[in-house]
Protein backbone atom coordinates (compact mmCIF):
# COMPACT_ATOMS: atom_id res chain seq x y z
CA UNK A 1 0.00 0.00 0.00
CA UNK A 2 1.42 3.37 -0.97
CA UNK A 3 1.98 6.06 1.64
CA UNK A 4 -0.74 8.14 0.05
CA UNK A 5 -3.29 5.37 0.26
CA UNK A 6 -2.31 4.74 3.89
CA UNK A 7 -2.72 8.42 4.76
CA UNK A 8 -6.11 8.56 3.05
CA UNK A 9 -7.10 5.39 4.92
CA UNK A 10 -6.20 6.94 8.30
CA UNK A 11 -8.15 10.07 7.44
CA UNK A 12 -11.21 8.12 6.28
CA UNK A 13 -11.18 6.10 9.50
CA UNK A 14 -10.90 9.25 11.62
CA UNK A 15 -13.79 10.95 9.84
CA UNK A 16 -16.17 8.00 10.18
CA UNK A 17 -19.04 8.40 12.63
CA UNK A 18 -18.62 6.86 16.06
CA UNK A 19 -21.37 5.87 18.44
CA UNK A 20 -20.39 8.48 21.08
CA UNK A 21 -21.35 11.16 18.61
CA UNK A 22 -25.00 10.20 18.99
CA UNK A 23 -24.89 11.12 22.70
CA UNK A 24 -25.51 14.89 22.48
CA UNK A 25 -28.46 14.40 20.15
CA UNK A 26 -29.98 11.65 22.27
CA UNK A 27 -29.52 13.88 25.33
CA UNK A 28 -31.14 16.83 23.52
CA UNK A 29 -34.21 14.76 22.54
CA UNK A 30 -34.42 13.19 25.98
CA UNK A 31 -34.32 16.70 27.46
CA UNK A 32 -37.32 17.64 25.34
CA UNK A 33 -39.45 14.92 26.90
CA UNK A 34 -38.04 14.81 30.43
CA UNK A 35 -37.60 18.53 31.23
CA UNK A 36 -40.60 20.32 29.70
CA UNK A 37 -40.17 23.26 32.09
CA UNK A 38 -36.65 24.00 30.93
CA UNK A 39 -37.25 24.22 27.19
CA UNK A 40 -36.56 27.95 27.12
CA UNK A 41 -33.15 27.48 28.74
CA UNK A 42 -32.60 24.49 26.47
CA UNK A 43 -33.29 26.62 23.39
CA UNK A 44 -30.78 29.21 24.58
CA UNK A 45 -28.19 26.50 25.11
CA UNK A 46 -28.78 25.16 21.58
CA UNK A 47 -28.33 28.67 20.20
CA UNK A 48 -25.05 29.13 22.07
CA UNK A 49 -23.82 25.71 20.90
CA UNK A 50 -24.43 26.79 17.31
CA UNK A 51 -22.64 30.08 18.00
CA UNK A 52 -19.69 28.27 19.59
CA UNK A 53 -19.59 25.87 16.64
CA UNK A 54 -19.23 28.80 14.26
CA UNK A 55 -16.37 30.15 16.37
CA UNK A 56 -14.73 26.72 16.47
CA UNK A 57 -14.26 26.76 12.69
CA UNK A 58 -12.38 30.01 13.02
CA UNK A 59 -10.54 29.53 16.29
CA UNK A 60 -10.23 25.80 16.83
CA UNK A 61 -9.54 24.77 13.24
CA UNK A 62 -7.95 27.78 11.57
CA UNK A 63 -6.31 29.32 14.64
CA UNK A 64 -7.78 32.82 14.23
CA UNK A 65 -8.31 34.27 17.72
CA UNK A 66 -11.09 36.85 17.63
CA UNK A 67 -13.10 38.71 20.24
CA UNK A 68 -15.58 40.18 17.78
CA UNK A 69 -17.80 37.29 16.85
CA UNK A 70 -20.83 38.88 18.50
CA UNK A 71 -20.92 41.30 15.55
CA UNK A 72 -22.17 38.55 13.27
CA UNK A 73 -24.47 37.01 15.87
CA UNK A 74 -26.03 40.40 16.55
CA UNK A 75 -26.35 41.27 12.88
CA UNK A 76 -28.11 37.96 12.27
CA UNK A 77 -30.43 38.58 15.22
CA UNK A 78 -31.33 42.08 14.06
CA UNK A 79 -31.75 40.98 10.44
CA UNK A 80 -34.16 38.21 11.40
CA UNK A 81 -35.92 40.47 13.89
CA UNK A 82 -36.29 43.39 11.49
CA UNK A 83 -37.62 41.14 8.73
CA UNK A 84 -40.33 39.97 11.11
CA UNK A 85 -41.24 43.43 12.40
CA UNK A 86 -41.20 44.62 8.78
CA UNK A 87 -43.90 42.13 7.83
CA UNK A 88 -41.96 39.08 6.64
CA UNK A 89 -42.91 36.45 9.22
CA UNK A 90 -41.82 33.22 7.54
CA UNK A 91 -39.01 31.77 9.71
CA UNK A 92 -36.87 29.67 7.33
CA UNK A 93 -36.39 32.38 4.72
CA UNK A 94 -35.61 34.74 7.63
CA UNK A 95 -32.81 32.39 8.70
CA UNK A 96 -31.35 32.28 5.21
CA UNK A 97 -31.49 36.06 4.88
CA UNK A 98 -29.84 36.59 8.28
CA UNK A 99 -27.04 34.15 7.51
CA UNK A 100 -26.49 35.78 4.12
CA UNK A 101 -26.31 39.29 5.57
CA UNK A 102 -23.90 38.19 8.30
CA UNK A 103 -21.74 36.35 5.76
CA UNK A 104 -21.66 39.47 3.58
CA UNK A 105 -20.39 41.52 6.53
CA UNK A 106 -17.90 38.72 7.18
CA UNK A 107 -16.57 39.13 3.66
CA UNK A 108 -16.10 42.88 3.98
CA UNK A 109 -14.79 42.85 7.56
CA UNK A 110 -12.65 39.76 7.02
CA UNK A 111 -10.92 41.41 4.10
CA UNK A 112 -9.53 44.06 6.46
CA UNK A 113 -9.30 42.07 9.69
CA UNK A 114 -7.44 39.08 8.25
CA UNK A 115 -4.68 41.26 6.82
CA UNK A 116 -3.65 42.00 10.39
CA UNK A 117 -2.58 39.68 13.18
CA UNK A 118 -2.29 39.50 16.93
CA UNK A 119 -3.44 42.53 18.88
CA UNK A 120 -4.58 44.46 15.79
CA UNK A 121 -6.76 41.53 14.73
CA UNK A 122 -8.34 41.29 18.18
CA UNK A 123 -8.88 45.04 18.22
CA UNK A 124 -10.52 45.18 14.77
CA UNK A 125 -12.89 42.36 15.72
CA UNK A 126 -13.99 44.34 18.74
CA UNK A 127 -14.17 47.53 16.67
CA UNK A 128 -16.56 46.00 14.11
CA UNK A 129 -18.81 44.89 16.98
CA UNK A 130 -18.77 48.37 18.51
CA UNK A 131 -19.42 49.91 15.10
CA UNK A 132 -22.59 47.83 14.70
CA UNK A 133 -23.50 48.63 18.30
CA UNK A 134 -23.36 52.36 17.54
CA UNK A 135 -25.50 51.85 14.43
CA UNK A 136 -28.11 49.76 16.24
CA UNK A 137 -28.15 52.19 19.15
CA UNK A 138 -28.60 55.24 16.93
CA UNK A 139 -31.25 53.94 14.56
CA UNK A 140 -33.61 53.64 17.49
CA UNK A 141 -36.64 54.36 15.35
CA UNK A 142 -35.90 51.15 13.52
CA UNK A 143 -34.18 48.95 16.11
CA UNK A 144 -35.67 50.20 19.36
CA UNK A 145 -32.21 51.39 20.46
CA UNK A 146 -31.35 50.52 24.04
CA UNK A 147 -34.83 49.08 24.68
CA UNK A 148 -34.23 46.35 22.13
CA UNK A 149 -36.30 45.19 19.21
CA UNK A 150 -39.54 43.72 20.46
CA UNK A 151 -42.67 42.57 18.64
CA UNK A 152 -40.84 40.01 16.53
CA UNK A 153 -43.74 37.87 15.31
CA UNK A 154 -42.89 34.60 13.62
CA UNK A 155 -45.37 32.69 11.44
CA UNK A 156 -45.90 28.97 12.13
CA UNK A 157 -43.03 26.81 10.94
CA UNK A 158 -43.78 25.22 7.55
CA UNK A 159 -47.23 26.75 7.95
CA UNK A 160 -48.16 24.20 10.65
CA UNK A 161 -46.15 24.41 13.86
CA UNK A 162 -46.78 27.64 15.74
CA UNK A 163 -44.20 29.06 18.15
CA UNK A 164 -46.17 28.50 21.36
CA UNK A 165 -45.58 29.86 24.83
CA UNK A 166 -44.28 26.49 26.08
CA UNK A 167 -41.34 26.75 23.69
CA UNK A 168 -41.74 23.26 22.28
CA UNK A 169 -41.58 24.38 18.66
CA UNK A 170 -38.73 26.76 19.48
CA UNK A 171 -36.66 24.01 21.05
CA UNK A 172 -37.11 21.53 18.22
CA UNK A 173 -36.59 24.27 15.66
CA UNK A 174 -33.28 25.31 17.27
CA UNK A 175 -32.25 21.66 17.53
CA UNK A 176 -33.02 21.01 13.86
CA UNK A 177 -31.09 24.10 12.74
CA UNK A 178 -28.15 23.10 14.92
CA UNK A 179 -28.20 19.56 13.54
CA UNK A 180 -28.17 20.69 9.91
CA UNK A 181 -25.41 23.23 10.62
CA UNK A 182 -23.44 20.60 12.49
CA UNK A 183 -23.64 18.14 9.57
CA UNK A 184 -22.35 20.90 7.31
CA UNK A 185 -19.47 21.84 9.63
CA UNK A 186 -18.53 18.22 10.24
CA UNK A 187 -18.42 17.55 6.51
CA UNK A 188 -16.32 20.66 5.96
CA UNK A 189 -13.69 19.99 8.62
CA UNK A 190 -13.02 16.47 7.37
CA UNK A 191 -12.98 17.53 3.72
CA UNK A 192 -9.69 18.55 2.08
CA UNK A 193 -10.65 22.20 2.62
CA UNK A 194 -11.03 21.60 6.37
CA UNK A 195 -7.74 19.71 6.54
CA UNK A 196 -6.04 22.66 4.85
CA UNK A 197 -7.45 24.92 7.59
CA UNK A 198 -5.77 22.77 10.22
CA UNK A 199 -2.58 23.00 8.19
CA UNK A 200 -2.90 26.78 8.18
CA UNK A 201 -3.34 26.80 11.95
CA UNK A 202 -0.27 24.63 12.47
CA UNK A 203 2.05 26.27 9.97
CA UNK A 204 0.78 29.02 7.67
CA UNK A 205 4.19 29.65 6.08
CA UNK A 206 4.47 26.02 5.06
CA UNK A 207 0.94 25.96 3.64
CA UNK A 208 1.75 29.06 1.62
CA UNK A 209 4.93 27.41 0.36
CA UNK A 210 2.90 24.38 -0.74
CA UNK A 211 0.87 26.66 -2.99
CA UNK A 212 -2.21 27.14 -0.79
CA UNK A 213 -3.54 30.69 -0.78
CA UNK A 214 -3.62 31.15 2.98
CA UNK A 215 -5.41 34.50 2.83
CA UNK A 216 -8.15 33.21 0.51
CA UNK A 217 -8.81 30.15 2.71
CA UNK A 218 -8.84 32.19 5.89
CA UNK A 219 -11.25 34.62 4.27
CA UNK A 220 -13.45 31.76 3.05
CA UNK A 221 -13.68 30.23 6.53
CA UNK A 222 -14.25 33.67 8.04
CA UNK A 223 -17.26 34.22 5.76
CA UNK A 224 -18.60 30.76 6.54
CA UNK A 225 -18.14 31.27 10.26
CA UNK A 226 -19.78 34.69 10.13
CA UNK A 227 -22.76 33.19 8.28
CA UNK A 228 -23.17 30.46 10.90
CA UNK A 229 -22.89 33.02 13.71
CA UNK A 230 -25.60 35.04 11.95
CA UNK A 231 -27.70 31.90 11.76
CA UNK A 232 -27.32 31.44 15.53
CA UNK A 233 -28.34 35.05 16.09
CA UNK A 234 -31.37 34.60 13.85
CA UNK A 235 -32.52 31.51 15.74
CA UNK A 236 -32.06 33.47 18.96
CA UNK A 237 -34.18 36.38 17.72
CA UNK A 238 -36.90 34.16 16.25
CA UNK A 239 -37.27 31.89 19.26
CA UNK A 240 -37.07 34.61 21.91
CA UNK A 241 -38.96 37.06 19.65
CA UNK A 242 -36.51 39.72 20.74
CA UNK A 243 -33.18 41.21 19.71
CA UNK A 244 -31.18 43.64 21.82
CA UNK A 245 -27.88 45.47 22.06
CA UNK A 246 -26.66 42.65 24.34
CA UNK A 247 -26.45 40.60 21.15
CA UNK A 248 -23.68 42.98 20.04
CA UNK A 249 -21.71 43.14 23.28
CA UNK A 250 -18.16 42.28 24.26
CA UNK A 251 -19.60 40.09 27.01
CA UNK A 252 -21.22 37.85 24.41
CA UNK A 253 -18.01 37.55 22.35
CA UNK A 254 -16.06 36.80 25.52
CA UNK A 255 -18.59 34.32 26.86
CA UNK A 256 -18.77 32.27 23.67
CA UNK A 257 -14.97 32.17 23.58
CA UNK A 258 -14.87 30.90 27.16
CA UNK A 259 -17.55 28.29 26.38
CA UNK A 260 -15.54 26.96 23.46
CA UNK A 261 -12.30 26.96 25.41
CA UNK A 262 -13.94 25.25 28.37
CA UNK A 263 -15.22 22.44 26.17
CA UNK A 264 -12.11 22.22 24.02
CA UNK A 265 -11.56 24.01 20.70
CA UNK A 266 -10.88 22.19 17.45
CA UNK A 267 -12.91 19.12 18.39
CA UNK A 268 -16.38 19.96 17.02
CA UNK A 269 -18.06 19.07 20.32
CA UNK A 270 -16.28 21.62 22.53
CA UNK A 271 -19.18 24.07 22.25
CA UNK A 272 -21.72 21.37 23.16
CA UNK A 273 -20.00 20.76 26.48
CA UNK A 274 -18.88 24.32 27.23
CA UNK A 275 -22.21 25.96 26.42
CA UNK A 276 -24.23 23.38 28.38
CA UNK A 277 -22.00 23.50 31.46
CA UNK A 278 -21.71 27.30 31.60
CA UNK A 279 -25.35 28.07 30.85
CA UNK A 280 -26.69 25.56 33.34
CA UNK A 281 -24.25 26.86 35.97
CA UNK A 282 -25.20 30.44 35.13
CA UNK A 283 -28.89 29.63 35.37
CA UNK A 284 -28.33 28.25 38.86
CA UNK A 285 -25.81 30.77 40.16
CA UNK A 286 -26.29 34.07 38.39
CA UNK A 287 -29.96 34.74 39.06
CA UNK A 288 -29.35 36.37 42.41
CA UNK A 289 -26.12 38.15 41.69
CA UNK A 290 -24.82 38.43 38.13
CA UNK A 291 -21.66 40.23 39.24
CA UNK A 292 -20.77 37.44 41.64
CA UNK A 293 -21.14 35.08 38.68
CA UNK A 294 -18.61 37.08 36.63
CA UNK A 295 -16.05 36.67 39.40
CA UNK A 296 -16.35 32.90 39.60
CA UNK A 297 -16.52 32.54 35.81
CA UNK A 298 -13.29 34.55 35.46
CA UNK A 299 -11.50 32.63 38.20
CA UNK A 300 -12.70 29.32 36.82
CA UNK A 301 -11.43 29.92 33.29
CA UNK A 302 -8.07 31.19 34.56
CA UNK A 303 -7.58 28.04 36.62
CA UNK A 304 -8.75 25.98 33.66
CA UNK A 305 -6.34 27.54 31.23
CA UNK A 306 -3.45 27.29 33.69
CA UNK A 307 -4.02 23.68 34.67
CA UNK A 308 -6.15 22.10 31.93
CA UNK A 309 -5.08 23.57 28.59
CA UNK A 310 -7.16 22.04 25.81
CA UNK A 311 -10.45 22.15 27.71
CA UNK A 312 -12.53 19.28 29.06
CA UNK A 313 -12.37 17.29 25.83
CA UNK A 314 -8.60 17.78 25.81
CA UNK A 315 -8.50 16.42 29.34
CA UNK A 316 -10.33 13.33 28.16
CA UNK A 317 -7.76 12.83 25.42
CA UNK A 318 -4.86 13.39 27.82
CA UNK A 319 -6.22 10.77 30.18
CA UNK A 320 -6.13 8.35 27.25
CA UNK A 321 -9.88 7.93 26.97
CA UNK A 322 -9.85 8.20 23.22
CA UNK A 323 -10.59 11.85 22.53
CA UNK A 324 -9.28 12.86 19.17
CA UNK A 325 -7.78 15.98 17.80
CA UNK A 326 -9.27 17.83 14.86
Amino acid sequence: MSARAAAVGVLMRRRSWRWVEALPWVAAIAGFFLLPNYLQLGTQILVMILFALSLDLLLGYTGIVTLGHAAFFGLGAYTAGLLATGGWHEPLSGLVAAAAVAAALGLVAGFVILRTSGLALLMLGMAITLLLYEVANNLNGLTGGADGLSGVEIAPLLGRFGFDMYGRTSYLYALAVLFVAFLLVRAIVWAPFGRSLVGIRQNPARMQAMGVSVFARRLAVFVLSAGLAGLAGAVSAQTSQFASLDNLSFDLSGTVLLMLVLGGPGRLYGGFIGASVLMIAQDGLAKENPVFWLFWLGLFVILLVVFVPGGLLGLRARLGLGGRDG
Partner: protein
Amino acid sequence: MELLSVATGIVATGTAYAMVLYIAAVGLSVTMGLLGIANLAHGAFAMAGGYAMVWGLDRLGLSFGVAVLLACVLVGVASVVMERVLYRRFYARSELDQVVMSVGLLFMSVAVAQFLFGPSPLSVRLPGLLTGSVPLVGDASLPVYRGFLILFGGAIFLLLWAGIERTMLGARIRAAVDNRFMAQAVGVNTDLLFVTVFALGSMLAALGGALGADMMALTPDYALAHLVYFMIVVAVGGLGSVRGPFVAALLLGIGDTACKILAPQAGAFFVYVALFVLLLARPRGLFGRTA
Protein backbone atom coordinates in the same frame (compact mmCIF):
# COMPACT_ATOMS: atom_id res chain seq x y z
CA MET B 1 -14.31 83.23 15.30
CA GLU B 2 -16.95 80.70 16.22
CA LEU B 3 -15.16 78.09 14.12
CA LEU B 4 -11.82 78.92 15.68
CA SER B 5 -13.07 78.58 19.24
CA VAL B 6 -14.77 75.25 18.49
CA ALA B 7 -11.58 73.99 16.86
CA THR B 8 -9.46 75.20 19.79
CA GLY B 9 -11.80 73.50 22.24
CA ILE B 10 -11.60 70.23 20.32
CA VAL B 11 -7.81 70.29 20.12
CA ALA B 12 -7.37 71.22 23.79
CA THR B 13 -9.85 68.68 25.18
CA GLY B 14 -8.72 66.05 22.70
CA THR B 15 -5.06 66.51 23.60
CA ALA B 16 -5.78 66.18 27.33
CA TYR B 17 -7.80 63.02 26.64
CA ALA B 18 -4.97 61.75 24.43
CA MET B 19 -2.45 62.19 27.26
CA VAL B 20 -4.59 60.08 29.58
CA LEU B 21 -4.97 57.39 26.90
CA TYR B 22 -1.24 57.49 26.25
CA ILE B 23 -0.15 57.15 29.86
CA ALA B 24 -2.67 54.37 30.47
CA ALA B 25 -1.85 52.40 27.32
CA VAL B 26 1.87 52.87 26.66
CA GLY B 27 2.73 50.19 29.20
CA LEU B 28 0.69 47.73 27.14
CA SER B 29 2.74 48.53 24.06
CA VAL B 30 6.03 47.90 25.83
CA THR B 31 4.93 44.76 27.68
CA MET B 32 3.41 43.32 24.50
CA GLY B 33 6.46 44.16 22.44
CA LEU B 34 8.81 42.76 25.05
CA LEU B 35 6.93 39.89 26.66
CA GLY B 36 4.77 39.00 23.66
CA ILE B 37 1.75 38.67 25.90
CA ALA B 38 -1.69 39.86 24.82
CA ASN B 39 -2.58 41.39 28.17
CA LEU B 40 -6.15 42.53 27.57
CA ALA B 41 -6.49 43.08 31.31
CA HIS B 42 -4.07 46.03 31.16
CA GLY B 43 -7.02 48.39 31.67
CA ALA B 44 -7.77 46.67 34.97
CA PHE B 45 -4.47 48.05 36.33
CA ALA B 46 -5.52 51.53 35.21
CA MET B 47 -8.89 51.08 36.91
CA ALA B 48 -7.19 49.84 40.08
CA GLY B 49 -5.04 52.97 40.05
CA GLY B 50 -8.10 55.19 39.76
CA TYR B 51 -9.97 53.47 42.56
CA ALA B 52 -6.88 53.39 44.79
CA MET B 53 -6.44 57.14 44.33
CA VAL B 54 -10.09 57.91 45.18
CA TRP B 55 -9.79 55.62 48.20
CA GLY B 56 -6.67 57.48 49.32
CA LEU B 57 -8.36 60.86 48.82
CA ASP B 58 -11.69 60.09 50.45
CA ARG B 59 -10.94 57.48 53.10
CA LEU B 60 -7.40 58.31 54.10
CA GLY B 61 -7.74 62.05 53.54
CA LEU B 62 -4.47 62.21 51.59
CA SER B 63 -3.56 65.12 49.38
CA PHE B 64 -3.94 64.70 45.61
CA GLY B 65 -0.26 64.12 44.79
CA VAL B 66 0.26 61.64 47.62
CA ALA B 67 -2.89 59.74 46.67
CA VAL B 68 -1.70 59.40 43.06
CA LEU B 69 1.69 58.20 44.26
CA LEU B 70 0.06 55.70 46.61
CA ALA B 71 -2.07 54.37 43.73
CA CYS B 72 1.02 53.81 41.58
CA VAL B 73 2.93 52.06 44.37
CA LEU B 74 0.02 49.80 45.34
CA VAL B 75 -0.63 48.77 41.75
CA GLY B 76 3.08 48.32 41.12
CA VAL B 77 3.41 45.92 44.04
CA ALA B 78 0.28 44.04 43.03
CA SER B 79 1.54 43.74 39.46
CA VAL B 80 4.81 42.15 40.60
CA VAL B 81 2.81 39.53 42.48
CA MET B 82 0.58 38.98 39.43
CA GLU B 83 3.60 38.63 37.17
CA ARG B 84 5.28 36.06 39.39
CA VAL B 85 2.13 34.05 40.13
CA LEU B 86 0.19 34.25 36.88
CA TYR B 87 1.60 36.09 33.89
CA ARG B 88 4.98 34.36 33.72
CA ARG B 89 3.21 31.05 33.13
CA PHE B 90 1.80 32.54 29.92
CA TYR B 91 4.89 33.95 28.19
CA ALA B 92 5.40 30.77 26.20
CA ARG B 93 1.71 29.92 25.83
CA SER B 94 -0.41 30.35 22.73
CA GLU B 95 -2.15 33.62 21.97
CA LEU B 96 -5.48 31.93 22.66
CA ASP B 97 -4.46 30.94 26.20
CA GLN B 98 -3.25 34.48 26.86
CA VAL B 99 -6.49 35.97 25.57
CA VAL B 100 -8.65 33.59 27.59
CA MET B 101 -6.66 34.25 30.76
CA SER B 102 -6.89 38.00 30.35
CA VAL B 103 -10.62 37.89 29.51
CA GLY B 104 -11.02 35.93 32.75
CA LEU B 105 -9.11 38.66 34.59
CA LEU B 106 -11.26 41.34 32.95
CA PHE B 107 -14.45 39.66 34.13
CA MET B 108 -13.00 39.30 37.62
CA SER B 109 -11.95 42.95 37.71
CA VAL B 110 -15.53 44.03 36.99
CA ALA B 111 -16.84 41.89 39.84
CA VAL B 112 -14.19 42.93 42.35
CA ALA B 113 -14.57 46.64 41.57
CA GLN B 114 -18.32 46.46 41.93
CA PHE B 115 -18.04 44.51 45.18
CA LEU B 116 -15.59 47.00 46.70
CA PHE B 117 -16.81 50.33 45.33
CA GLY B 118 -20.38 49.79 44.12
CA PRO B 119 -21.85 50.12 40.64
CA SER B 120 -22.08 53.91 40.29
CA PRO B 121 -19.26 56.08 38.94
CA LEU B 122 -16.96 57.69 41.50
CA SER B 123 -16.11 61.34 41.28
CA VAL B 124 -12.71 62.82 42.02
CA ARG B 125 -12.09 65.86 44.20
CA LEU B 126 -9.42 67.86 42.42
CA PRO B 127 -7.09 70.05 44.48
CA GLY B 128 -7.94 73.77 44.53
CA LEU B 129 -4.80 74.62 42.62
CA LEU B 130 -5.96 72.58 39.62
CA THR B 131 -9.58 73.77 39.43
CA GLY B 132 -10.90 76.74 37.47
CA SER B 133 -10.10 77.48 33.87
CA VAL B 134 -8.07 79.79 31.70
CA PRO B 135 -9.53 81.59 28.65
CA LEU B 136 -8.24 80.66 25.20
CA VAL B 137 -9.22 82.00 21.77
CA GLY B 138 -12.75 83.43 21.45
CA ASP B 139 -15.33 81.63 23.63
CA ALA B 140 -13.07 78.66 24.24
CA SER B 141 -11.52 78.15 27.63
CA LEU B 142 -9.33 75.42 29.02
CA PRO B 143 -9.92 73.91 32.45
CA VAL B 144 -6.69 74.18 34.43
CA TYR B 145 -6.74 70.46 35.15
CA ARG B 146 -6.76 69.62 31.43
CA GLY B 147 -3.88 71.99 30.87
CA PHE B 148 -2.05 70.18 33.65
CA LEU B 149 -2.80 66.80 31.97
CA ILE B 150 -1.37 68.05 28.67
CA LEU B 151 1.84 69.29 30.28
CA PHE B 152 2.17 66.22 32.48
CA GLY B 153 1.50 63.80 29.60
CA GLY B 154 4.05 65.60 27.44
CA ALA B 155 6.59 65.34 30.26
CA ILE B 156 5.93 61.62 30.73
CA PHE B 157 6.38 61.09 27.00
CA LEU B 158 9.71 62.91 26.94
CA LEU B 159 10.85 61.03 30.03
CA LEU B 160 9.94 57.65 28.52
CA TRP B 161 11.52 58.54 25.21
CA ALA B 162 14.76 59.61 26.88
CA GLY B 163 14.59 56.57 29.14
CA ILE B 164 14.22 54.11 26.32
CA GLU B 165 16.82 55.79 24.07
CA ARG B 166 19.42 56.88 26.60
CA THR B 167 19.44 54.61 29.67
CA MET B 168 20.87 51.13 30.13
CA LEU B 169 17.43 49.78 31.04
CA GLY B 170 16.06 51.25 27.81
CA ALA B 171 18.86 49.67 25.81
CA ARG B 172 18.16 46.29 27.42
CA ILE B 173 14.46 46.63 26.65
CA ARG B 174 15.12 47.52 23.01
CA ALA B 175 17.56 44.63 22.70
CA ALA B 176 15.10 42.14 24.18
CA VAL B 177 12.22 43.40 22.01
CA ASP B 178 14.33 42.92 18.89
CA ASN B 179 15.79 39.55 19.80
CA ARG B 180 15.14 38.05 23.19
CA PHE B 181 17.53 35.10 22.86
CA MET B 182 20.40 37.19 21.61
CA ALA B 183 19.87 39.62 24.47
CA GLN B 184 19.91 36.73 26.89
CA ALA B 185 23.06 35.38 25.29
CA VAL B 186 24.95 38.63 25.83
CA GLY B 187 24.06 38.64 29.49
CA VAL B 188 20.77 40.50 29.87
CA ASN B 189 18.85 39.06 32.82
CA THR B 190 15.57 38.82 30.92
CA ASP B 191 13.68 37.35 33.86
CA LEU B 192 14.43 40.42 35.98
CA LEU B 193 13.88 42.67 32.97
CA PHE B 194 10.42 41.19 32.36
CA VAL B 195 9.17 41.75 35.89
CA THR B 196 10.64 45.28 35.95
CA VAL B 197 8.99 46.24 32.69
CA PHE B 198 5.72 44.64 33.69
CA ALA B 199 5.71 46.57 36.96
CA LEU B 200 6.63 49.85 35.24
CA GLY B 201 3.92 49.34 32.62
CA SER B 202 1.34 48.63 35.28
CA MET B 203 2.39 51.65 37.33
CA LEU B 204 2.03 53.85 34.26
CA ALA B 205 -1.43 52.38 33.72
CA ALA B 206 -2.28 53.18 37.34
CA LEU B 207 -1.01 56.72 36.85
CA GLY B 208 -3.17 57.10 33.74
CA GLY B 209 -6.20 55.68 35.52
CA ALA B 210 -5.69 57.95 38.52
CA LEU B 211 -4.99 61.19 36.65
CA GLY B 212 -7.62 60.42 34.03
CA ALA B 213 -10.41 59.57 36.47
CA ASP B 214 -11.77 63.04 35.83
CA MET B 215 -12.14 62.36 32.07
CA MET B 216 -12.63 58.59 31.95
CA ALA B 217 -15.23 57.86 34.61
CA LEU B 218 -14.41 55.23 37.22
CA THR B 219 -17.01 52.50 36.84
CA PRO B 220 -16.63 48.77 37.50
CA ASP B 221 -16.60 48.01 33.76
CA TYR B 222 -13.79 50.53 33.16
CA ALA B 223 -11.35 47.90 31.90
CA LEU B 224 -13.89 46.59 29.37
CA ALA B 225 -15.31 49.96 28.36
CA HIS B 226 -11.94 51.48 27.47
CA LEU B 227 -10.22 48.31 26.28
CA VAL B 228 -10.74 49.01 22.59
CA TYR B 229 -9.25 52.49 22.86
CA PHE B 230 -6.17 51.17 24.67
CA MET B 231 -5.80 48.53 21.98
CA ILE B 232 -6.20 51.10 19.21
CA VAL B 233 -3.41 53.20 20.71
CA VAL B 234 -1.09 50.19 20.79
CA ALA B 235 -2.10 48.56 17.50
CA VAL B 236 -2.03 51.79 15.50
CA GLY B 237 1.12 53.04 17.20
CA GLY B 238 3.05 49.81 16.86
CA LEU B 239 4.21 47.28 19.43
CA GLY B 240 7.22 47.80 21.64
CA SER B 241 7.42 51.52 20.97
CA VAL B 242 6.93 54.59 23.14
CA ARG B 243 6.74 57.10 20.26
CA GLY B 244 4.18 55.37 18.01
CA PRO B 245 1.52 55.15 20.72
CA PHE B 246 1.99 58.85 21.47
CA VAL B 247 1.07 59.81 17.91
CA ALA B 248 -1.72 57.22 17.86
CA ALA B 249 -3.12 58.54 21.15
CA LEU B 250 -3.11 62.12 19.82
CA LEU B 251 -4.95 61.08 16.64
CA LEU B 252 -7.47 59.03 18.60
CA GLY B 253 -8.00 61.55 21.40
CA ILE B 254 -8.53 64.52 19.09
CA GLY B 255 -10.51 62.48 16.52
CA ASP B 256 -12.79 61.04 19.16
CA THR B 257 -13.38 64.43 20.79
CA ALA B 258 -14.12 65.98 17.39
CA CYS B 259 -16.68 63.25 16.63
CA LYS B 260 -18.37 63.69 19.99
CA ILE B 261 -18.62 67.46 19.63
CA LEU B 262 -19.44 67.71 15.91
CA ALA B 263 -21.63 64.60 15.49
CA PRO B 264 -22.69 63.52 18.98
CA GLN B 265 -25.52 61.28 17.76
CA ALA B 266 -23.08 59.11 15.78
CA GLY B 267 -20.92 58.40 18.86
CA ALA B 268 -17.61 56.85 17.94
CA PHE B 269 -18.90 55.53 14.60
CA PHE B 270 -16.51 57.57 12.48
CA VAL B 271 -13.55 56.67 14.68
CA TYR B 272 -14.11 52.98 13.93
CA VAL B 273 -14.61 53.64 10.21
CA ALA B 274 -11.37 55.63 10.09
CA LEU B 275 -9.65 52.82 11.96
CA PHE B 276 -10.68 50.24 9.36
CA VAL B 277 -9.54 52.46 6.51
CA LEU B 278 -6.21 53.10 8.24
CA LEU B 279 -5.52 49.44 8.93
CA LEU B 280 -6.58 48.47 5.42
CA ALA B 281 -3.84 50.75 4.15
CA ARG B 282 -1.31 49.91 6.87
CA PRO B 283 -2.07 46.54 8.50
CA ARG B 284 0.91 46.91 10.84
CA GLY B 285 -0.11 50.30 12.16
CA LEU B 286 1.52 53.65 11.60
CA PHE B 287 4.95 52.77 12.94
CA GLY B 288 4.79 48.98 12.99
CA ARG B 289 7.99 47.26 12.01
CA THR B 290 7.93 44.50 9.45
CA ALA B 291 8.56 41.18 11.11
